[in-house]
């Protein structure tokens, strides 16, 4: 199976090529089958690889395909690396990717760009697989930029809408800012280690002292890339805007897979980060700040997808917090569980939007429980999972992160648990406003309410099941588990793990779990009190808001800040450079030289009087002078 790994990305690529070239001629059913089938094929192989890998002693396999770029001692093979980390991500990407493909068959069935949508999705899966499979940083970068491109294409999927196009462009450009950092990081890795293959780099890095300045520079640059892709402060504003894309895209790209690429990258380079304590601190701080910051914005949003988007940013912050405190397994664990429940929530939201005939404002919803029972039940499971309710998957992964934070720095823990409280609150706020009480939309919308087709509900049910049981792969020892995931991933993190020793006692762990549960209950209670008991409704656009409320509703004006701080000055500079510096100064000098010649000639030509007598006279005088100088 492992030797067939090249098939894993190839299948979606073939799907993309077929649908991309002949999509117009094929029927929608066939497009759906090719699109989903290719991903399912990839999933099947990934599953085979996973089981083969668990059975083997040797945990790392490199499969060379061809020599991609070589110049001097820089040699970059196009090759894949199979190890526990990549095989786990393979499963997540292809598994969730497949479910979302199936879901999309139903969700997008009325869209005229159906074939195009599947072509893009397949291309995305291809690049995402390259990202996780590559055996060196440049292949990862290929996937990294490739998924950015697909994200751009899918956010702007409905390309007639200018706002969507702007969101797409913003996402691509913000990603590119990060990508530059990543690229420079890769080059620095090459310059430092003479190679960019993971194996060579980590072998050499292991022997460097902790806090090595070059390593710090490398890791900071890599982290810049992760900030862009995983929507952390300060490059997070593209992700909420990215909700302009169709909902399956939000679920697949902007929740489950692409945005976790940053976590994958850092987990992959864990040894480099472990040896750079400064970067680790930065990662943790950025992570916890983002978790908190995005959660506060999430408190006041009224668009069902925007709430989920900010929740994604916040959860990604949690993952970076985990990375920053050295809980690599926790971060990967949370990537996995988050992929389950956040994909579930987004798909559920998609189902709600589908039922509501395109309405996304939760102020117009309510009481959907009885109309769309399957969606309701699965959405509730997702909400409980993200809130970290025992025994849903989110409980285990979030607990592991918070435990890591507690161990590392109590402040991080406090901020983390505050963010968790807010998460619980806004998720239940969302849930209550959407599904409970009575319907607040128009009569026509109410008339239209219907449960989604099977192709949409079945993925929901599967994801709900995964959200419940997904956490069981990582039951901590304190609860009598073996933590299969930690053991499985241990070869990847072995160089880091002996440098970061975990030593929480079981009693502390119990205390942390109980604290987390209490916090969750408080969150649910506040939300229940506000939206069920008191039946508060979020303010309409026209209403004046409290200053604080207004600030978070307006997302701290970060977009406006960037607009005024970067976009406008850049346009101004561009204009100024063009009109003043280029046209006047630089070109002015060039033209000046030309006109200087012209002007000089216009002075000198006056000597040309046309009077022949004068010419001859000057000639004779000159000859006489020449003769005189010869004589003397």
């Amino acid at each position: 199976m492992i030797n067939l790994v090249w098939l894993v990305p190839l299948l979606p690529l073939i799907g993309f090529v077929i649908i991309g070239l002949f999509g117009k001629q094929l029927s929608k059913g066939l497009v759906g089958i090719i699109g989903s089938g290719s991903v399912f094929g990839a999933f099947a192989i990934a599953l085979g690889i996973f089981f083969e890998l668990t059975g083997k002693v040797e945990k790392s396999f490199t499969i060379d395909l061809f020599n991609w770029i070589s110049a001097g001692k820089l040699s970059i093979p196009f090759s894949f690396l199979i190890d526990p980390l990549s095989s786990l991500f393979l499963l997540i990407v292809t598994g969730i990717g497949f479910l979302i493909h199936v879901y999309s068959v139903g969700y997008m069935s009325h869209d005229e760009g159906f074939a195009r949508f599947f072509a893009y999705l397949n291309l995305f899966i291809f690049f995402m697989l390259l990202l996780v499979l590559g055996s060196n940083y440049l292949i990862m970068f290929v996937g990294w930029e490739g998924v950015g491109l697909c994200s751009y294409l899918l956010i702007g999927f409905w390309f007639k809408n200018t706002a969507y196009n702007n969101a797409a462009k913003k996402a691509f450009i913000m990603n590119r800012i990060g990508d530059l950092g990543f690229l420079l990081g890769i080059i620095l890795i090459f310059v430092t280690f003479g190679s960019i293959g993971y194996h060579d780099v980590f072998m050499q890095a292991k022997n460097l002292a902790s806090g090595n300045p070059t390593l710090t520079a490398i890791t900071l640059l890599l982290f810049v890339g992760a900030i862009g892709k995983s929507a952390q402060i300060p490059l997070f504003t593209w992700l909420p805007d990215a909700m302009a894309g169709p909902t399956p895209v939000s679920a697949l790209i902007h929740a489950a897979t692409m945005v976790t690429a940053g976590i994958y990258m850092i987990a992959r380079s864990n040894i480099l980060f472990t040896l750079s304590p400064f970067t680790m601190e930065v990662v943790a701080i950025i992570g916890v700040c983002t978790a908190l910051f995005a959660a506060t914005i999430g408190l006041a949003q009224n668009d069902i997808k925007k709430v989920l988007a900010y929740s994604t940013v916040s959860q990604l912050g949690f993952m970076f917090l985990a990375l920053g405190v050295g809980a690599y397994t926790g971060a990967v664990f949370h990537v996995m569980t988050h992929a389950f429940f956040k994909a579930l929530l987004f798909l559920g939201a998609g189902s709600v939007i589908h039922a509501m005939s395109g309405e996304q404002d939760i102020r117009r919803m309510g009481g959907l429980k009885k109309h769309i029972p399957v969606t309701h039940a699965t959405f509730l499971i997702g909400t409980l999972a993200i809130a970290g309710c025992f025994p849903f998957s989110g409980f285990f992964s979030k607990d592991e992160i918070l435990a890591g934070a507690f161990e590392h720095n109590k402040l991080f823990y406090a901020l983390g648990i505050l963010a968790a409280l807010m998460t619980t609150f806004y998720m239940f706020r969302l849930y209550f406003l959407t599904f409970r009480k009575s319907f607040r939309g128009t009569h026509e919308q109410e008339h239209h309410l219907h449960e989604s087709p099977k192709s949409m509900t079945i993925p929901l049910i599967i994801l709900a099941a995964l959200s419940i049981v997904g956490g069981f792969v990582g039951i901590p020892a304190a609860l009598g588990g073996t933590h299969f995931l930690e053991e499985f991933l241990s070869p990847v993190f072995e160089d880091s793990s002996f440098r970061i020793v975990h030593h929480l006692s079981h009693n502390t762990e119990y205390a942390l779990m109980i604290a987390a549960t209490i916090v969750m209950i408080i969150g649910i209670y506040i939300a229940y009190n506000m939206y069920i008991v008191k039946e508060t409704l979020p303010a309409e656009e026209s209403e004046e808001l409290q200053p604080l409320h207004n600030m978070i509703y307006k997302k701290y004006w970060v977009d406006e800040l960037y607009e005024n701080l970067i976009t406008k000055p850049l346009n101004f500079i561009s204009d100024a450079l063009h009109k003043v510096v280029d046209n006047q100064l630089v070109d002015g000098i060039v033209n000046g030289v030309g006109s200087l010649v012209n002007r000089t000639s216009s002075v000198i030509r006056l000597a040309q009087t046309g009077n022949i007598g004068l010419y001859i006279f000057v000639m004779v005088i000159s000859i006489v002078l020449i003769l005189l100088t010869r004589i003397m």
Partner: protein
Amino acid sequence: MSAIQIIPINWYLLLSTVLFTIGVLGVLFRRNAIIIFMSIELMLNAINLLLVAFSSYLSDSKGQVFVFFIMAVAAAEVAVGLAILMMVYRNTKSTDINILNKLKW
């Protein structure tokens, strides 16, 4: 000793200089194109005289060969020059060179 060498070289030089200077002054100060032409011929002939004299004194025939060249060139020049002058006269009814000042900026 040929006839030429009877007269000392200095006289030749003097005559030639006088002729040449007359030619130069003629060119410079007269405005009639025909007279200027004649002055130019005068200068050429002053040089010819000098060449012949030196040729004889130095017993080197090259100088006399040169004279023939100059005479040929002068004849050609007169042919062309007079043709131009004819045209000028036909167009302007004058041979005054100061009219010909169109060749300026």
